[in-house]
């Protein structure tokens, strides 16, 4: 069995496979209209490369769910609630997202008023039925929605977590009419109606798009076993992913975050920012001695979603971001992207200038060595199209190109600030772990503007996201609300059904001996937030202790309540071996001198720059300006930076020390 991680970006699709202790990587242009086509081509090429066809298992990071939500291209979705509470989704928690912003906006709800339908029923908090839901009413609502051409329905009734009877009834009625349904008691059986409703609605909204897209993809790519990365860093079978697409909202960037942490760890970087610059967007995350923090609730596109997610921040700037002149005459870059189709102008079809074209104009991307020479570039076309923009801006071509890069850098710098400064971490103490196809060309500029320690560009930089997927465990969480005073007799009894379910589900994912972690959520009677401690003979004692460490006091005299018992089931995978430095870049001589446009003084000027293949790099420190070519990416070392080769083919960039001393003096 060959395990292959695949990362579909807006511009390229990356492949990573482990075979016989070696990591193989591959890259093909994405085919956004039909992503399976790029998968199929890439898989075929990769398999030829590793020596023939065989049984493969694909781990896939998908932006299908994310994009459908961001671009509001989900299903035609309705919501069924308890009558009188149809507006809970629109009211939210009645708070504004920003305290002092008079222009504050809130994202519109995913389901408009006319498709939010109430049914007459009532379930008491203890689960007893106070008012039966009439079967006729359930059928009538289902009928009306089906007739109106609704595709999917979110069902969220008050207190359904205590008794799902009425949600089940609606579910049956809706399914019988061919509607797709997401019920809140299955997805998030917890109290707090707004968060549960919002999460269920997002899931229902994605149902009609994500499952079919994933199935089509699997078929098109001729893969039998496909699992998808979920936002928490674990993976899910296609079947599970299709019914709970809300778990895939960070599926795309999560592979990179996991890969970045593994790479940082192997290179001994304890405090770093993972910086993944792709063709369409840039994802950043903070790495403090571990993978990014796991959030239990997050907002995506203004919609609160209560499923675990890694803490990753995304901005719309990448190699394919389009530059334009706005109404006020200012240069704007992104968030629109040329993507893979038409792609940057230099690839021959695009007619809008992109960040990549700017690099081509400045000759930092060498036309004959793009993707190891596998794609031919058209530098004339890039220059002509950047020149068109330059005329509108009344600048020369080189200054326009430098301007495009500076504006893109400013957007990315903002993202880096969010995960460092805004969380109280000084970027001056952090290193940049740069990856993604375009990262190496921008890393040094960003290090300079945030005065970071330096940037590490690992050998596997351009496929790190795909590689990260090979680290993904199968991981599922199970919970059951108890709300009983501790010690609640035989707790083991309450864990049993969860353990059974976990073994069954993971069995289906091909895991025979899962790791099963048992935990309990506890609080003092009267509180409504819990602390989670591992289940064991001293769990109550552990709770008092944790409460004291976290909040400065504990109350051994106060009664403790067991709110929830939890099981986390993990099917471990063996991590891929370290990547050895890639093959030598095609036809790169040891050193070559070329002349290119550099920033300097009032206007860019031409200067001699050394170009070197990554394989040919000596161990000693090299001064910029320098262009380091790899098979699949280029690294730019500006004049005020030094570069040094590190273990396993990584490259370390650092502001030149002499310059630094001058600056601080």
């Amino acid at each position, binding site marked *: 069995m060959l395990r292959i991680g695949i990362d579909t970006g807006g511009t390229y699709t990356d492949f990573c496979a482990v075979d016989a202790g070696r990591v193989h990587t591959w890259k093909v242009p994405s085919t956004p209209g039909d992503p399976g086509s790029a998968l199929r081509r890439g898989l075929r090429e990769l398999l030829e490369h590793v020596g023939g066809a065989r049984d493969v298992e694909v781990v896939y990071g998908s932006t299908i769910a994310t994009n459908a939500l961001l671009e509001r291209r989900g299903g035609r979705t309705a919501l069924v609630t308890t009558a009188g509470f149809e507006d809970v989704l629109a009211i939210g*928690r009645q708070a504004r997202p920003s305290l002092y912003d008079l222009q504050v906006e809130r994202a519109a709800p995913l389901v408009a008023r006319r498709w939010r339908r109430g049914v007459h029923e009532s379930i008491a908090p203890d689960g007893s039925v106070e008012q039966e839901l009439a079967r006729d009413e359930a059928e009538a609502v289902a009928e009306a929605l089906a007739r109106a051409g609704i595709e999917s329905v979110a069902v969220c009734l008050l207190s359904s977590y205590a008794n799902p009877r009425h949600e089940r009834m609606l579910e049956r009625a809706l399914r019988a009419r061919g509607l797709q349904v997401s019920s809140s008691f299955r997805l998030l059986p917890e109290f707090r*109606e707004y968060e549960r409703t919002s999460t269920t609605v997002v899931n229902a909204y994605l149902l009609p798009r994500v499952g079919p897209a994933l199935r089509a993809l699997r078929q098109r790519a001729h893969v039998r076993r496909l699992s998808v990365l979920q936002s928490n860093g674990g993976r899910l079978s296609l079947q599970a992913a299709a019914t709970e697409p809300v778990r895939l909202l960070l599926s795309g960037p999560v592979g990179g975050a996991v890969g970045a942490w593994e790479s940082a760890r192997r290179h001994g970087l304890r405090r770093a920012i993972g910086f993944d610059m792709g063709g369409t967007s840039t994802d950043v995350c903070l790495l403090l001695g571990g993978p990014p923090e796991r959030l239990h609730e997050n907002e995506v596109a203004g919609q609160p979603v209560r499923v675990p997610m890694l803490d990753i921040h995304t901005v719309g700037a990448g190699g394919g971001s389009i530059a334009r002149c706005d109404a006020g005459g200012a240069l704007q870059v992104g968030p629109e992207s040329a993507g893979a189709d038409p792609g940057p102008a230099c690839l021959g079809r695009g007619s809008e200038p992109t960040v990549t074209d700017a690099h081509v104009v400045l000759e930092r991307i060498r036309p004959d060595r793009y993707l190891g020479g596998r794609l031919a570039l058209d530098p004339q076309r890039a220059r002509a199209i950047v020149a068109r923009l330059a005329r509108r801006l009344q600048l020369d071509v080189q200054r326009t190109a430098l301007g495009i890069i500076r504006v893109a850098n400013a957007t990315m710098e903002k993202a880096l600030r969010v995960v460092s400064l805004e969380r109280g971490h000084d970027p001056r103490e952090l290193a940049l772990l740069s990856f993604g196809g375009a990262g190496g060309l921008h890393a040094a500029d960003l290090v300079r503007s945030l005065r970071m320690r330096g940037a590490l560009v690992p050998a596997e930089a351009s496929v790190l996201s795909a590689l990260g997927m090979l680290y993904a465990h199968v991981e599922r969480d199970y919970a059951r609300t108890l709300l009983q005073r501790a010690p609640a007799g035989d707790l083991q009894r309450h864990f049993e059904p969860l353990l059974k379910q976990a073994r069954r589900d993971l069995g289906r994912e091909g895991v025979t001996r899962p790791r099963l972690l048992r935990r309990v959520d506890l609080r003092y009677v009267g509180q409504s937030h819990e602390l989670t401690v591992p289940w064991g003979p001293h769990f109550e004692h552990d709770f008092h202790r944790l409460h004291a460490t976290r909040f400065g006091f504990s109350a051994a005299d106060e009664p403790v309540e067991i709110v929830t018992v939890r099981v986390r089931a993990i099917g471990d995978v063996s991590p891929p071996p370290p990547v050895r430095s890639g093959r030598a870049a095609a036809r790169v001589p040891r050193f070559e001198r070329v002349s290119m446009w550099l920033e300097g003084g009032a206007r860019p000027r031409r200067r001699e720059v050394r170009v070197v293949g990554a394989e040919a790099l000596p161990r000693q420190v090299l001064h910029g300006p320098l262009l380091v070519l790899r098979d699949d990416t280029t690294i730019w070392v500006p004049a005020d930076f030094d570069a040094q080769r590190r273990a396993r083919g990584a490259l370390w960039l650092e502001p030149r020390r002499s310059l630094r001393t001058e600056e601080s003096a």
Partner: protein
Amino acid sequence: MNRRTSFDPVSVELWKHRFAAVTAEMGVALRRTAYSSNIKERRDFSTALFDAHGRMLAQGEDIPVHLGSMPMSVEAALREAPPGPGDVVLLNDPFRGGTHLPDITLVSGVFRRGRRAPLFYVANRAHHADVGGMRAGSMPLATEIYQEGLRIPPLFLVRGGHEQGDVLRLILANVRTPDERRGDLRAQIAANRVGERRLVEIVAEHGAQQVERHANALLDYSEQMTRQLLRRTPDGRYHAVDFLDDDGVGCGPVRIEVLVEIQGGRARVDFAGSAPQVAGGMNAIEAIARSAVFYVVRALVAEAIPSNEGCMRPLRVVVPSRSVVSARPPAAVAGGNVETSQRLVDVLLKALRPALPDRVPADSSGSMNNLTIGGIDRDGAPYTYYETMAGGMGARPGAHGLSGVHTHMTNSLNTPIEALHHQFPFRVTRYALRRGSGGGGRWRGGEGLVREYRFELPAQVTVLSERRTQAPCGAAGGGAGATGRNRLWRGGRWRRLPGKFQIEVTPGDRLRIETPGGGGWGRA
């Protein structure tokens, strides 16, 4: 101070977030360890951080009405009961920097081990669902503060790390729900502890001098940003008058008047002409007037500047003594903090509308629609419940107002209906946007809310609400928002209730609160 300081942009950003992170962390600790739904679910609290001189350095993004008043609480604590190492000082006296009696503030010093000179002070303020007095929930229609609940001057709740049992017992003996109060007070102590611990770590890492230098730079920075706003505002005298519906005990409308004079990057805000203090509990104390001014300026600056003492430096606030904006004992004050504070913002924005026509929105709903319910539950245990309801936001030049959202001086959340049903012997039977309540215009005002309750056991119910007779105004020709309405279902029919009332409900009674919409902006 007239020099233009140059700031290191990275340091300003970094320390702004560092200090803000401390207050945010205090807020998390408070919310996660609190017992009452008003604190743990509705987040009706705020946290703040002060330097060794009592100057506010940072405040959590919580409740703006606490902004200008927290510094006065700290000032009172430092004057009357300065906290030493391991001490926590408690107070709620509105005439010593409090706001109204349910808001209890805890102040602690931050010290290096073995030292007696403080590095910082941390404080947090939380709205307790009961502090005694004539009605459950301590938000009654009173005519003297003594009826509103227990009034506590600064005193030591914790001394040298030891909870002062006598103080705690005295407080708990005077409130309806002592267990919940004890839990909430411990949560407040925890919040200060968390703040102390983080600050001690920060000082250990960066050194006290560095931290102080950055703190001062942040104060200067906020000052400079505020001055810039005032400089961008045309110099002039801006005047406005608005009214509260009534004082709840038969008097009204109640006049609020302001004159804002802006000149050369400074502003003088004078509330002369406002009504003398009223018999009912709609009196605001000076700290609230300062908070309203602070909020308006902070919102108009339109940049993410730290909320600290620096913002106040270019402002001078003048209040007529013994007036509805600067009450003195024995005035009742429960509604001043929650209702009059909103009107103060309305009148300030109204005054500044001609100066900043493209920035200032139409009137928002202008009421927090306060509801308190108290009684004895099925198990014979006393309970008290407090919540506020949002309304429509005023339309902005260029955007509709948001619907069903808290505006201006508060941003507390709603109580999840499921949380409420778990705990209390009444039900919410309807929670909806109030269709058609927003003012018309080029940009429409936001819609108010409808919230309906059904009572299962006898209970005391008190409502303090505004904009029931005086509608939120539109701007630039936009229409007014709908006034709010309060109604009771009893004996088979709906009866109209006034904006402020206290009643005894019986099982089967239903209460419906319809909150005001926001004003529209521009002609349709």
